């Protein structure tokens, strides 16, 4: 007879379970067959997760003195916490309650009622055997360090930094480029309001730059993250700027005097040039320039130093001896806002990008129409002089295409409409937008579309087959001909244009898998960071303490990125206020007297929770660092490592129950080997 008094509760879940599993039969079977395994009460109820259902459990605990509870219902990922809290209210340690799934893993996936019922019985029996061996546990409380690390200084990172810093908590904002601002800093106008991108972005950048609570680390990258939620140790490499930030006034004379002109592939998207010592753009924050080693004559050939010569500061701000700095600091939470990369249009050869001069990408066009851009905002062809008479804007380049990216990149429709409007406004050229569907789903977006229609932009519904300069009909010479099937007219069309703008897809960063690996979060197959729940928890990740915001989680526009930046900040502020966090007490621990010091387990832990004590010649596990995966438990040749909630005995007990070896009527009898003497 088992010493425990176990309550079994089989849920109907309306008809979700009851339709395929004979829940009354399961409850009856549990009380009859599992009586001597400790089951003292077995009920079935319409909705166990309802308050009435929970009260059933609480009443039984109090009146029948239950010491264990097994609920057979939906998935533990849904209502485990609900039933554990119910037990806690009734005075029973929450970890003595087990939720076994007979909905997602039985009723919803099987059709044969008898087989499903028998499987439900086995699942309940497994739960009963397992819960018998559960130990009362207290959640692990870890302190939360008030500082926060934000990776990525785009609009999402900036928003998160401001929200947290304004609440009075320290923020480290690490940005890979010399200045924060991200892709938004490259845009001219933003949809749908046609606000000047710089006008609405720079104030926030200046706030971040000057904020007492923000430590701004630009031209820097996170190299390592150790520790766990509440106390991460972050190692950042602050690359040498060769400019002493304490002395430099940001006057820009060095950039003026620098003789070396370099093609700027990042900020100017390859359309403009910068100097070897440069500041990405005028409103850059921080205002200190950076020397680009590869192109600086001094670093390559040891002479020049023009920038240092003309630098008006004393002592000279330009310092060629500056070395990379490795910084290390403690933070409680981390927000990743690393943004996106643009699809490489060269991957679609038939659109002619990089082969036909007047084919531009969306980012190139943003620089083209930007007042601070290489052409001062004049929309011109690649020769820098001629204004286009006709412009073709192609949507979904590399998006919604099973050869490239299956997903919709969310922003290209509105961006293409914006481009159409800007061309019409500044050049009066004919504009053709080639689309599959116009997606204007958010506030004031469709109104903007109507306005662009009124501007007289032509819309051709069809995926462009080819952009070619091979003229075929008269009037096509010297033009770029867009070959497209107009699905509304139902015929092929060849539209000669002077300029083509490709609204390229948004793609995950090139190094997103490495970054995910560094921060211990998961990356989906195509590279977007995986959120904890796509609908209910989009800014958290499966890893406690790591949050994501903005385009790194999936293609989205500025309003959504700002919202997610603020949301992630709110989640972090919530954590900081709690001062400590209760973690699932699933931990591994070593039974010291059984450890022989063989060190087999020493290299198993990616969280460095396992360390060897050279003095006592045995291995120890730091419970704070241990994430509870159990790999070392299964690896220890002496069986000297055990784990709470997932000990060998508990798992084997569940197995014993699942195989119905604990019930007389079970399918497989454990025959006594004939040879054991009477």
């Amino acid at each position, binding site marked *: 007879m088992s010493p425990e008094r176990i309550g079994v509760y089989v849920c109907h879940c309306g008809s979700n379970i009851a339709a395929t599993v004979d829940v009354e039969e399961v409850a009856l079977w549990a009380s009859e067959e599992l009586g001597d395994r400790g089951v003292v009460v077995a009920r079935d109820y319409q909705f166990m997760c309802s308050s009435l259902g929970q009260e059933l459990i609480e009443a039984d605990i109090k009146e029948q003195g239950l010491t264990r509870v097994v609920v057979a219902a939906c998935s533990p990922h849904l209502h485990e916490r609900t039933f554990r809290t119910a037990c806690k209210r009734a005075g029973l340690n929450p970890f003595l309650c087990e939720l076994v799934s007979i909905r997602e893993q039985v009723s919803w996936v099987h059709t044969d009622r008898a087989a499903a019922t028998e499987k439900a019985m086995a699942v309940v029996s497994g739960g009963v055997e397992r819960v018998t061996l559960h130990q009362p546990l207290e959640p692990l409380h870890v302190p939360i360090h008030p500082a926060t690390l934000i990776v990525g200084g785009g609009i999402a990172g900036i928003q998160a930094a401001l929200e947290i810093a304004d609440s009075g908590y320290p923020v480290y904002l690490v940005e890979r480029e010399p200045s924060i601002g991200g892709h938004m800093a490259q845009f001219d106008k933003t949809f749908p309001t046609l606000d000047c991108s710089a006008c609405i972005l720079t104030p926030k950048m200046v706030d971040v730059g000057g904020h007492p609570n923000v430590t701004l680390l630009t031209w820097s990258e996170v190299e390592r993250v150790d520790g766990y939620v509440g106390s991460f140790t972050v190692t950042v490499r602050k690359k040498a700027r060769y400019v002493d930030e304490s002395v430099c006034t940001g006057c820009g004379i060095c950039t003026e005097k620098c003789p070396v002109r370099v093609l700027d592939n990042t900020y100017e998207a390859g359309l403009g040039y910068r100097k070897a010592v440069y500041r990405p753009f005028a409103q850059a924050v921080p205002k200190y320039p950076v020397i680009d080693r590869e192109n600086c004559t001094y670093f390559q050939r040891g002479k020049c130093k023009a920038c240092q010569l003309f630098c008006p500061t004393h002592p000279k701000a330009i310092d060629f001896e500056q070395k990379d700095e490795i910084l290390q600091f403690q933070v409680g939470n981390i927000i990743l806002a690393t943004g996106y990369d643009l699809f490489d249009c060269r991957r679609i050869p038939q659109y002619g990008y990089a082969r036909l001069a007047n084919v531009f990408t969306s980012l190139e066009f943003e620089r083209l129409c930007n007042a601070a851009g290489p052409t001062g905002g004049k929309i011109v062809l690649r020769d820098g002089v001629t204004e286009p008479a006709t412009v073709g804007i192609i949507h979904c380049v590399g998006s919604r295409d099973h050869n490239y990216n299956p997903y919709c990149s969310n922003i290209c429709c509105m961006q293409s409409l914006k481009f159409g409007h800007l061309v019409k406004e500044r050049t009066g050229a004919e504009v053709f937008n080639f689309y599959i569907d116009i997606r204007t789903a958010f506030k004031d977006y469709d109104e903007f579309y109507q306005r662009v229609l009124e501007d007289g932009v032509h819309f051709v519904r069809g995926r462009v087959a080819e952009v070619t300069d091979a003229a075929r009909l008269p009037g096509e010479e010297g033009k770029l001909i867009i070959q497209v099937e107009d699905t509304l007219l139902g015929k092929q069309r060849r539209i000669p244009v002077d300029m083509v703008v490709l609204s390229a897809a948004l793609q995950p960063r090139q190094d997103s898998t490495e970054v995910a690996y560094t921060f211990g979060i998961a990356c989906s197959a195509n590279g977007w960071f995986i959120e904890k729940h796509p609908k209910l928890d989009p800014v958290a990740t499966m890893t406690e303490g790591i949050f994501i915001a903005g385009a790194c989680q999936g293609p989205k526009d500025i309003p959504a990125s700002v919202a997610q930046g603020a949301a992630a900040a709110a989640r972090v502020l919530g954590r900081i206020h709690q001062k400590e966090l209760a973690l699932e007490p699933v931990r591994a621990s070593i039974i010291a007297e059984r450890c022989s010091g063989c*060190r087999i*387990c020493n290299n198993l832990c990616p969280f460095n929770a396992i360390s060897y004590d050279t003095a006592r010649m045995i291995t120890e596990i730091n419970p704070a660092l241990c994430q509870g995966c159990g790999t070392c438990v299964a690896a220890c040749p*002496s069986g000297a490592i055990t784990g709470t909630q997932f000990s060998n005995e508990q798992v084997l007990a569940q197995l014993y129950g699942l195989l119905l070896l604990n019930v007389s009527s079970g399918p497989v009898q454990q025959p006594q080997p004939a040879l054991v003497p009477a």
Partner: protein
Amino acid sequence: MNANGKPKLAMYWASACGGCEISTLNIGEHILTVDAVFDLAFFPCIADFKVKDVLGYPDGYIDLCLINGAIRNSENEEMVRLLRRKSKLLVAFGSCAYEGCIPALSNLTTRDATLRAAYLDNPSIDNPAGTLPQPHTAVPEGDLEIPFFYHTVKSLDQVVDVDYTIPGCPPEPHQIWAVLQVVVAALTQGGSLPPKGVLLGAGSVAVCEECALAKHEKAVARFYRPYQIRPEPGLCLLEQGLICMGPATLSGCGALCPQVGMGCRGCYGPLPGAEDQGMRMLTAIASILDVSGRPGDNELDLERKVEAAADTIVDPAGTFYRFSMAHSLLRRARTDGVEAAVPQPAVWS
């Protein structure tokens, strides 16, 4: 206790190699003490006892009976059942009696395959008629009988109730003497006997604790057979790619083998916390096999790399269950129709 008041000692060898007897005699001059304290009631290895002598004893006559060797045939079984009845304390002495040891390795194959290998397709056999030993053979002189050769080898505790166990192949002389002293104290000066079923003459943690070789974090690209490399002295053998069962084997022998550069074979059996020595060693080896990849690697390439590394471990079942086959969770191979994949020893083929 009868006539001369001296406790009666017996030592029998079932399917064994005699190594345990030699190790017992290796306790040196203490053998004189044993002779002084005990009366030998049955010790076929060193004195001419006959079965009918044992049959003549009343039940429980033998105070201490040390049985080594596995139960391979019907004679072994009869004798151990007989000695069980005639003995107060029955000790499973050595790895064969404790967990099957080398004889039990034949559980990976069948009786017929074993007999064929020994009597028919054996390189040095001359048996044109292809005769195989039979339990009963009629010969002019009469009916010849030999014990029945079992399909499955069993350990002592799978046949009779065992009081104590002394692991090891063979148990170390100093451990044997230590156990004898405890028993002698109990029998003569009324000292207390250890609780039934206890493992005597062994440590409580793995061999590594007693092993003097330097141990570090282990990452092994591949494994070698002992003849393939010459291990560096002073460094853990496992780290050099030699399979050493030390981490999964009970200490007590003083890590003799690793000190001379030979990986521990696992003869002292599993640790108290481990239910199946083979699986404990398998998962230990898998944990230090240095084959992994980075996110985005091709899964097939990864599998090929792991398979290639696993190829360097020639006979996993035989290696990891060399001594504890009879106590393994699966106990024997399934051979009905499915020809047990007995690995051909690389040396012969």
